[in-house]
């Protein structure tokens, strides 16, 4: 009986297997890289309507975060300041500068400046700023070194895994309350200080939720 298939068909199964392995590897690697929050979020730095420099205000001038984000330690939501806060200095400093024209206009008209939001957790996630900053989680843990950013960008992943990493091991991230707003603070390396810092978790009754309903309320 004559062969149904030509001889070159013999190598097809091997080729198919090799192709499947390659495709599968490519898909896994591709999804792992391109679909991760590391790729989709980190580095997002939209142009803001006013070129406000955190590097200058927070870094060089060392203005406390709470001077502008006034309710971060008292409210679940960390507010973006109204232009009246800007004008508390800029009514005297650089009062006629062109770069501040939009701020003055907003202050006079009462129309807020349409800042572009950078950090946002999904609607189905409950996040409370006050409870974090009042229990020794520094701004820098989620927002990065904003005091060094000329233009603020998305520095951390803010993925669920990112949240859980800290909720599972709070002792690795907690810091003295006094240092929460100090973006340049470094964890001491001597064992006595580490022990002291890790003790905060116990002393302050820090018990971060890991159940679904802790954040997905």
């Amino acid at each position: 009986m004559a062969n149904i298939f030509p001889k070159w068909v013999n190598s097809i199964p091997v080729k198919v297997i090799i192709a499947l392995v390659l495709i599968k590897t490519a898909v896994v690697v591709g999804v792992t890289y391109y679909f991760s929050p590391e790729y989709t979020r980190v580095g997002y730095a939209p142009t803001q309507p006013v070129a406000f420099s955190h590097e200058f205000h927070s870094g060089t001038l060392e203005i406390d975060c709470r001077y502008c984000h006034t309710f971060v330690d008292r409210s679940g939501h960390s507010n973006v300041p109204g232009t009246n806060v800007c004008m508390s200095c800029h009514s005297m400093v650089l009062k006629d500068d062109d770069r501040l024209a939009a701020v003055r206009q907003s202050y006079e008209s009462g129309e807020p400046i349409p800042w572009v939001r950078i950090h946002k957790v999904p609607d189905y996630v409950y996040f409370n700023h006050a409870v974090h900053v009042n229990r020794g989680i520094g701004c820098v843990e989620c927002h990065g070194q904003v005091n060094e950013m000329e233009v603020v960008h998305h520095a951390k992943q803010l993925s669920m895994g990112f949240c859980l990493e800290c909720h599972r091991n709070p002792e690795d991230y907690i810091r003295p309350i006094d240092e929460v707003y100090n973006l340049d603070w470094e964890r001491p390396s001597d064992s006595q200080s580490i022990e002291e810092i890790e003790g905060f978790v116990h002393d302050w009754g820090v018990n971060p939720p890991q159940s679904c309903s802790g954040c997905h309320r």
Partner: protein
Amino acid sequence: MSTDSTDSQFSPERSALLSKVEPAVLEEQALVTNNRDFNWVTNKICKIVETNAPNWWWVCFAVALATASFTLVGLIWLVSTGVGVWGLANPINWGWAIVNFVFWIGIGHAGTLISAILCLLKQGWRTSINRAAEAMTIFAVVCAGIFPLFHVGRVWFAWWLFPLPNANLIWPQFRSPLEWDVFAVSTYGTVSVLFWYMGMIPDLGILRDRAVQRLTKGVYEGSSKLRQSMAHGADIFRKYFYGVLAMGWRNAGNHWRNYEMAYLLLAGLSTPLVLSVHTIVSFDFAVAVLPGWHTTIFPPYFVAGAIFSGFGMVLTLMLPLRALYGLHDLITQRHIDNMCKICLGTGSIVGYAYIMEFFIAWYGANPYESFAFINRAFGQYSWAYYIMFSCNVFTPQLFWFSAVRKNAALVWIMSILINVGMWFERFVITVTSLANDFLPSSWGYYSPTIVDVFTFFGTFGLFSTLFLLFLRFLPLMPIGEIKFVMPQADPHGHESDNGKESH
């Protein structure tokens, strides 16, 4: 082993006694009757695929497709609206979906039992029913899988059931029997497909070679030119279709040796699955701390019930096929007898379990447990309990009588009753315990909605559609293995035992 050599091992007293008593020689019925030869078997099975589909096939196929569309409608309805369209409501959050899942998964068990356990036990009678039973297993798993899949609610997230690394740093709950189910059922489905397909390769080779032979001969009979060229075209399709599927099978000695070894390995691999899959399904209930569910009897009781329902379904399918395709010489009364006896055995285990549950409910002296069972038999769902009990406990007991087993129509009706009973068993277990749990203020009564009914009704269509396609395109029985159990294949031949002993 011949009769003469056996006799010589025993003492003369024994031989004298035996000749005095003259014990009856029990004829073992042949597995292929009417003295059919090898060629007849090949032709009979291949012709089912090679000739035009009979009219009844088209009628059944149309009805099956129409029925299957109900599942499609039910699922579209569900996905576009939400799980609320099912009849689930507190406190009964496991309704028909789980009932139907367990029902279909259970049906599949006969296929694995026949192909794996009966193979290891060298039961020759499995050969003419194993292929169809394995097909039934796979199609039943397909039907079963639909229900938990859509029960998760957002079906597009169903892949979360698998433990894949993800940016959320979370895993499925490995302590949940529902997660074990995912592994048990997917393993079961995979191994069943492998077993089914591998067993089919020699037969696919036969179908390929027959098509090639006809093409070489080039003579096609038919009333018109069109019919002839259609038959020709069909053979070209078969040449490539079966050619690809047969994976280069050449019927060579080393092919058969590898085949036998692979078959044995897969049989060994699937044997634990026969027991494990439904054991884990029973854990869905038994691991929960709910009266009526939390019992150690569940795994064996569920496995027995699964095999019971599976053989019921095999009978339901094979008896009409036997009549429609004229397969009486291949599926003999001996096959039917054996299947009925397995139904009888497993059905009796199930009946024993029902009674034992009541005994333990009394003996355990737990008021909640005893309430659960009194409520089952006499409460708001007692009607379902009576259907279950009469179908599952009384029906198989009739199989004690050979007159019943010889009446194919009666056996067929009873096989359907068995599956009705087994569906109600799952309904009773799932719903009664949930409807009347610890807190009387939250007691409820479960009723399915039209969407539940559509989805379940349609799965019978889906199952039938797949099975009819199997009949149409794949060999219904393992040709080589049937030949192996035929009297002609007996290496001792007929002459040596002088009719005193038959194999």
